[in-house]
């Protein structure tokens, strides 16, 4: 169609070339709605020719609702005196297509409109994508609502369960322990040493189970309490925990190294609970060391502050390191080190609730190091990293 000309003048042919070589649909109609001009894209899309369409109206080409809308928009553009933007829908081979249309009137010498030009760009794909995003968001919101409701329900259930555990399971234990005592007191003459020892074992185990129930409740509480973040001085916190431990066992000689100015961002109560458990563990597992050593510090890994608690205690078999954080998992016998095995499960839950990670390394007989972060690795790194060890 286009002729190559060296002529610099722009005439009707050049303008026609311009409107024919575009992906937009371009057309011109008089005020009666009769077609005066269409471009090639129009011809292609609606399978008409420029010659055939002359003098026809949209009502000859499209279903009446579609034609009515085009006509109304034409008149609105003519009345406005300048360009107006519309979204229009026209039938296509694969169903309705949405067009972003600019319509503007052509004005005569008297300033009155005599025709309306339209340039329509097919935005069906964009609309479809928008619609999909909208639908996706609606679905997502729906799913979030459902999941929240489920979570609330299960939290309520857990609450009820915890309450029941604290009430209903403790009362029978008290009876076991108490009646063992009454037997010991009232029938001791009828019991030999073995009988008395058996009753004592009964009591020890009833107490142990009561402790386990308490631990279980503490564990469930760490999952349920609301998280309130604030800046925490972990050095001061570690030192106070160590002071308490040292006061409980003044005879132990433990070399304590707490790096200065360890600071983190977390829930004060929960982080203290975690640190308390980690340090108490280090304290416990260094009990058989003549020169026990506990170090609390931090390093930076991938621009993230990683805190650690290191001891030169009994350590654990690295083959079982996945089991470390499971509730009631114990990697040492009760005769060696006492405990219910709930401490590290609590620590892990606290760290996970902060979006952080926890892991441990150990060489059995040499010591163990527990590492943890208080933020997720994909969130922004803390404003200030404390690098110390």
């Amino acid at each position: 169609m286009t002729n190559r000309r060296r002529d610099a003048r722009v005439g009707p042919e050049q303008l026609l070339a311009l409107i024919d070589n575009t992906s937009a649909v371009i057309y011109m109609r008089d005020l009666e709605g009769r077609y005066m001009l269409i471009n090639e894209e129009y011809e292609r899309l609606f399978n008409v020719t420029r010659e055939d369409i002359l003098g026809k109206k949209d009502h000859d080409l499209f279903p009446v609702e579609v034609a009515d809308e085009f006509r109304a928009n034409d008149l609105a553009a003519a009345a406005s005196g300048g360009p107006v933007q519309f979204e229009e829908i026209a039938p296509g081979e694969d169903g309705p297509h949405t067009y972003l249309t600019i319509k503007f009137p052509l004005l005569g010498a008297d300033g009155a409109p005599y025709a309306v030009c339209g340039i329509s760009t097919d935005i069906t794909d964009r609309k479809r994508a928008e619609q999909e995003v909208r639908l996706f968001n609606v679905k997502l919101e729906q799913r979030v609502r459902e999941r929240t409701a489920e979570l609330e329900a299960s939290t309520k259930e857990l609450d009820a369960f915890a309450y029941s555990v604290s009430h209903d399971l403790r009362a029978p234990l008290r009876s076991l322990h108490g009646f063992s005592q009454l037997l010991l007191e009232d029938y001791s003459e009828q019991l030999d040493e073995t009988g008395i020892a058996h009753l004592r074992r009964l009591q020890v185990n009833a107490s142990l189970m009561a402790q386990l129930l308490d631990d279980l409740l503490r564990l469930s509480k760490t999952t349920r309490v609301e998280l309130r973040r604030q800046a925490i001085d972990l050095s001061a916190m570690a030192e106070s925990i160590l002071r308490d431990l040292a006061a409980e066992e003044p005879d132990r000689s433990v070399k304590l190294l707490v790096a200065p100015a360890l600071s983190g961002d977390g829930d004060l109560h929960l982080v203290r609970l975690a640190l308390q458990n980690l340090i108490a563990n280090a304290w416990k597992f260094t009990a058989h060391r003549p020169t026990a050593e506990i170090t609390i510090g931090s390093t930076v890994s991938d621009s993230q502050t990683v805190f650690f608690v290191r001891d030169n205690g009994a350590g654990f078999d690295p083959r079982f390191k996945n089991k470390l954080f499971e509730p009631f998992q114990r990697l040492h016998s009760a005769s060696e080190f006492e405990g219910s095995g709930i401490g590290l499960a609590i620590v892990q839950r606290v760290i996970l609730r902060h979006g952080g990670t926890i892991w441990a390394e150990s060489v059995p007989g040499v010591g163990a190091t527990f590492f943890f972060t208080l933020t997720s690795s994909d969130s922004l790194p803390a404003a200030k990293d404390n690098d110390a060890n």
Partner: protein
Amino acid sequence: MQTSDVLLVEDNPDDVTFTQRAFKKNNFDNRIIVAHDGPAAVDLLLPLAGTAPLQPLLVLLDINLPQMSGLDVLRRLRSNGQTKLIPIIMLTTSNDNRDVLASYESGANGFVRKPVAFDDFLHAVKSLGDFWLEVNEQVPLQDS
């Protein structure tokens, strides 16, 4: 007439046995009157006209009771002029924060969780008795 009686509101017969034993072992010779549920306790303290009310020195009140919970009993007693000043200690298995808070808010004078180990229980009862039955100044009787 105020007596040196202690009213124990407790539905678990085992706990009744332990409490009685603990009193005896700690040499508190106060009479222990047992109400096995909430309505029974209310009937004793706020009887219908014509019956003399029980006027105990101390009420030990369990929370987890059938029919009427210990908290309901507590609120009922606190809302009546005749019983609003009686010392009431919650003696219960629960240590749920909500129960502790609700107890104090409803006018309990104390909250003691029953320990599982009997010697701990003995110790708790001794502390309770030492304070409420021996040391503490009793509510003066008011002229009626």
